[in-house]
């Protein structure tokens, strides 16, 4: 599959000369840099701390957690392109389907904000999923679930769990950027689709 020149435009369905094309052109640097971010994450110069297959696996999982069909289908194709086995792709789908998918929730540091605490699950991969994904990717997806739905519960032990599963410091930075970027991209696409009168 050919990667579109501008992934956001492709997922929104922006056609040249359309009103939305004109709107995006008024913020041409943001448009260009969102695409440059995508390429830095999915076509990295250095993939030694996180492989392209791992990146696509995380992206597919994040897209499924958001329940947006346009992005989920796109990253399903990227995952196949990156060389995922059918078993790996199926495991990611099964894990996403088994995970709670509503947010944001989480707790504040104990104090005046505690009355706003919204407790929720700390999701863990199933044992079948852990076997299919391997320890490194299973740990990543557990972290990803927290980042997507309850980032305010984050604490140092969550990063220690990634270290213990074999992630490097640079790998953790890239993983975090990847999930954070996708949280942006999926919302940008959803928002622009609504603006264009699409679902």
């Amino acid at each position, binding site marked *: 599959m050919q990667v579109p020149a501008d992934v956001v435009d492709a997922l929104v369905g922006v056609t040249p000369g359309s009103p939305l094309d004109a709107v995006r052109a008024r913020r041409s640097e*943001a448009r260009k840099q969102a695409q440059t971010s995508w390429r830095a994450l999915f076509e990295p110069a250095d993939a030694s701390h996180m492989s392209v297959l791992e990146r696509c696996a995380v992206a597919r999982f994040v897209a499924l957690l958001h329940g947006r069909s346009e992005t989920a289908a796109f990253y399903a194709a990227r995952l196949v392109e990156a060389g995922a086995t059918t078993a790996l792709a199926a495991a990611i789908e099964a894990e996403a389907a088994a995970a709670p998918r509503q947010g944001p929730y989480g707790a504040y540091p104990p104090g005046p*904000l505690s009355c706003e605490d919204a407790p929720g699950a700390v999701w863990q991969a199933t044992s079948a999923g852990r076997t299919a994904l391997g320890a490194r990717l299973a740990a990543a997806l557990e972290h990803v679930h927290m980042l997507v739905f309850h980032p305010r519960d984050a604490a140092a032990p969550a990063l220690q769990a990634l270290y213990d599963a074999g992630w490097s410091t640079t790998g953790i930075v*890239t993983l975090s*950027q990847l999930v954070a970027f996708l949280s942006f991209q999926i919302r940008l696409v959803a928002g622009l689709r609504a603006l264009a009168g699409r679902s």
Partner: protein
Amino acid sequence: MTNKTLTPPPHEAPPVFTRDMLDWLAWIEPVAEDALDARQRESLIDAARSKSAYFRLLARDPDVLEARTRTDKDIFYNPEAGLPRAERELAATATSRFNGCIYCASVHARFASTYSKRTEDVDRMLAEGVGADLGERWNAIVEASVALTATPIRFGPAHVERLRRAGLDDLSIADVVASAAFFNWANRLMLSLGEPATMPKA
């Protein structure tokens, strides 16, 4: 090499949302200031950011950091038409308030306050949350930001329509979308790689 998370020095966590300047303490090791290579320095864009643990940590993946920062700058600083800067900052603050990022909320509440001169309204949202009544135009922007931040995403035609009725043109609505979407990026980094701390009293 053993990889262990860092234990931040003794500090006080901010107990509430605030416009005060906060510090940020990393949980994993940033690149040391004198160890930044040429590409990492370039990726900071503003040389002064070599003082920031947050940016020196993100500089471990310089290509992503540089593109992230350039995306951020155009969404918030591009002065050409669209949503006024104050209201782009309002969307950033509302998103941060709803996700629970005390650090990001503090920075962008200061900007929202400075550019709008509506400090009391900004403070009301910090204190009461995203349901605070700030008048129809600001309420519409806050509600749109929150609906886009929720998962599943709730933002839809009704939010677009309310923003249009509040006087926003399509470019301004796209600016609300981009500002709120971008803070879903920023909040997750700030919340998950370290923690905020109150500044020591002088």
